[in-house]
């Protein structure tokens, strides 16, 4: 039997306030709090909450016969926690039914898959644990930002242990092939690919309320007939769309909620299709062939490529300057810095700088807070310049170095004395050798003995092998102290 796979994308970026160059170096608060709050609240009221309720009703009504999947970005989840906890609650209710699959993606809805493997991995892991923490399930299916995919991205995803991934059924990649089958990666055969049926998805997501569309108004009967026209031996119709389609892109007045309330019931009664989640499809169906994607594709625009985010000079400069900070960010434990680092990586910032519609006189105004791509670029670069300054301040040793031998540090590592054996072992297992050396140089013989007791052979050797650390700043020591406190 053919399957229908619903997947909805939920994302909200942190929009940046008007940030002038003279704010640089003084003002490290970048969010347009008012705008973020009001957009999240509005979309929650108009879309997320009513649609979640609708889906919950459908699941209650149809039980195991109705299933959907979601991908919710880390930045969206953070904002729900901040501004609309009721949205989070309602997603938790959906999760509790067991009929909803939550997918993994990059925490920041970033484009990092095209740039840095290490940071990509970090963000995927971060997102996975956030989903686990909130919804109690570990994601097993991956979807990349804007469904961006290429052979290269696929390899990275496979290496992270995923065996299913979603992407666009882009015509220029598929050619004569149908998106309604399961495909697999040419090298990592285990990585199965579900491809968006863009015609049927976009009929709902983009065209539903368009009165100039020859098929308007779209009824559930008509849509069901279209579904049934899919060849009998095909496997799955993947209906992938932004969750804001319901109530925000397509207003409630357009009848979109009624459409979505009735359609699943009609499909179930008709009996030719069953609803499945991506993980179920990947488990049950066999891929029909390999799919080669040498250049990145996405679900955006007619081109279905990445030119909405990257490619013009401004986008490329901003992108390169941002990721030039990756190495340094690894050494920074500051919570606000790490949060800003994620917020700045959201793909949306690069989308605002796109000039390809601008040139046609066509404006992609939706959710774009800037009058032109140039203002978007200047504002982003001002913020990024400030962020750069902060990163450099934290990583360059600007303070007077303190000598080891002097022992005049006012840092108190007395907590170490109070640590239990288990805490001590955990700390030693996780602390950086260099940090450990700093600690050892600044504590009493008594504490030193205690450390050495739990050191273990590997750390002992690492410590011995460590080149002499000549000097370090008070700031670094403070950081180490904070790290230690985490293990108490």
């Amino acid at each position, binding site marked *: 039997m053919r399957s229908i796979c619903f997947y909805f994308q939920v994302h909200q970026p942190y929009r940046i306030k008007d940030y*002038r160059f003279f704010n640089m170096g003084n003002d490290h608060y970048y969010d347009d709090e008012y705008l973020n709050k009001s957009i999240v609240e509005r979309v929650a009221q108009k879309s997320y909450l009513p649609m979640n309720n609708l889906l919950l009703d459908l699941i209650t009504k149809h039980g195991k016969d109705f299933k959907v999947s979601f991908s919710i970005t880390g930045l969206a989840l953070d904002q729900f926690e901040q501004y609309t906890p009721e949205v989070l609650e309602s997603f938790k209710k959906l999760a509790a039914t067991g009929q909803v699959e939550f997918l993994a993606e990059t925490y920041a809805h970033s484009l990092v898959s095209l740039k840095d493997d290490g940071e990509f991995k970090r963000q995927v892991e971060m997102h996975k644990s956030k989903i686990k923490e909130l919804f109690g399930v570990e994601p097993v299916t991956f979807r990349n930002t804007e469904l961006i995919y290429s052979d290269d991205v696929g390899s990275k995803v496979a290496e992270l242990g995923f065996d299913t991934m979603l992407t666009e059924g882009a015509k220029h990649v598929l050619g004569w092939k149908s998106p309604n089958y399961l495909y697999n990666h040419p090298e990592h055969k285990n990585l199965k690919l579900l491809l968006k049926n863009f015609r049927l998805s976009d009929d709902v997501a983009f065209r539903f309320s368009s009165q100039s569309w020859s098929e308007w108004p779209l009824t559930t009967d008509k849509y069901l007939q279209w579904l049934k026209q899919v060849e009998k031996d095909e496997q799955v119709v993947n209906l992938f769309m932004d969750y804001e389609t319901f109530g925000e892109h397509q207003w409630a007045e357009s009848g979109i909620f009624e459409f979505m309330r009735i359609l699943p019931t009609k499909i179930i009664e008709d009996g030719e299709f069953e609803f499945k989640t991506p993980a179920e499809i990947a488990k049950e169906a066999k891929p029909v062939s390999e799919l080669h994607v040498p250049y990145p594709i996405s679900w955006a625009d007619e081109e279905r490529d990445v030119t909405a985010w990257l490619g013009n000079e401004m986008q490329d400069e901003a992108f390169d300057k941002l990721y030039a900070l990756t190495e340094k960010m690894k050494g920074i434990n500051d919570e606000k810095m790490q949060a800003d680092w994620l917020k700045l990586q959201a793909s949306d910032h690069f989308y605002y700088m796109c000039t390809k519609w601008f040139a046609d006189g066509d404006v992609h105004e939706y959710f774009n807070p800037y009058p*032109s791509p140039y203002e978007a670029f200047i504002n982003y670069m001002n913020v990024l310049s400030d962020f750069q300054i902060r990163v450099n301040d934290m990583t360059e040793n600007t303070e007077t170095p303190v000598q080891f031998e002097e022992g005049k540090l006012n840092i108190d590592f007395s907590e170490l004395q109070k640590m239990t054996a288990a805490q001590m072992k955990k700390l030693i297992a996780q602390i950086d050798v260099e940090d450990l050396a700093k600690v050892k140089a600044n504590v009493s013989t008594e504490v030193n003995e205690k450390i050495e007791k739990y050191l273990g052979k590997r750390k002992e050797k690492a410590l011995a092998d460590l080149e002499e650390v000549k000097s370090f700043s008070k700031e670094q020591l403070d950081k180490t102290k904070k790290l230690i406190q985490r293990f108490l």
Partner: protein
Amino acid sequence: MKVLMFGWEFPPHITGGLGTASYGLTKGLVKHDVDIIFVVPKAYGDEDQRAARIVNASDIPVNYKSKEIQEFYHRMTYLEVGSSIMPYVDPIEFENLHQEEGKLLKEKEHLVLGEKYDFSGKYGANLMEEVARYALVGASIAKQFDFDVIHAHDWLTYSAGVAAKELTGKPLVVHMHATEYDRSGEGRVNSNVFDLEKMGMDQADLVIPVSNLTRNTVISKYGIDPSKVKTVHNAIEPVEQADLEVKRSVKEKVVTFLGRLTFQKGPEYFVEAAKKILEKDKNVRFVMAGNGDMMNQLIRRVAELKIADRFHFTGFLKGEDVDKMFLLSDVFVMPSVSEPFGLVPLEAMRSNVPVVISKQSGVAEVLKHALKVDFWDVDGMADAIYGLLHYESLSNMFKVEGKEEVENLKWEHAAEKIKELYQEVISN
């Protein structure tokens, strides 16, 4: 199609944007097979006659005994005012004008109604006298030539246009390049000029403002019927780029203002923005090129802000010096308080200089590759300038795409629209 066009100046004898625009327009119209009789108060004989047949108003005798002329003259007597009206003041003449007191038109009646009149064709102390005489010439010329439509540029020529219309019954199109509100600002409007502008537009069958900004002024301040006010944006004449070699003498980046130092151009906002930038970045120099009644006040402000070592006044620049100034500039700023169109940013872009322009300019309506800010938003202006100075990809894009954009703003296109509008008024 034949057009009787009344202008005040024609290249090469121009002092402001009016002459440049009139010339560009006539050249564009010729490409669309429109014949033009272009009347100027004073022709020098070296005007470009390829675009239009130039008629020198100074050569046109006025039959003062004619009843029509007498009648017309009597209706114009409200023009009897002092002469401190300076619509497009030539900076060179600026100071002289201030000291000169004009005589009343009545006293000069014998001159205005004389057989012949020697126009200066400038914007001098006897401007009103010349405007009055020009109107009489308009009436006389209308009887001598054959044409389908009358087209008058700015208030100076409106009376001439109206006279020609009254005598021939041919439709009148008036072009609004700048209103009295733009030149003087709210609260300082010269009521005589205002009256003339309103009279011209009321009598006209069609009003063409150079931007929607001006269109709004025409409708809201002058109460003109919106249905006969149709915007046609100005364009720019392509030029052969002179092969200028300019050596940069300073290592700092250069930000330039170029225009009259008057209320309308908003130079004080440029000074304040410069201060903001210099607080953050000393490696920038600001150049203020121009002259005008705010010069002294601006110099004092620059000194007060203690930025005089980075802020330079050049005085009035013209010709090749303007081109050189652009070659030395990294950013051009036009902070105008009210700019009906604004040609200078287009000239800057043509020389590969990225521009920041005020939203209160007509040119902002047509340009994409320009940063636009409200003239009063000094922070926004400073930020836009800073962005262009520091983010290379942005300025690179502006240089390349801005130049292309300007090259596509052709008078030919504007003229095509105007020809269509002519056809409309003729057939009505």
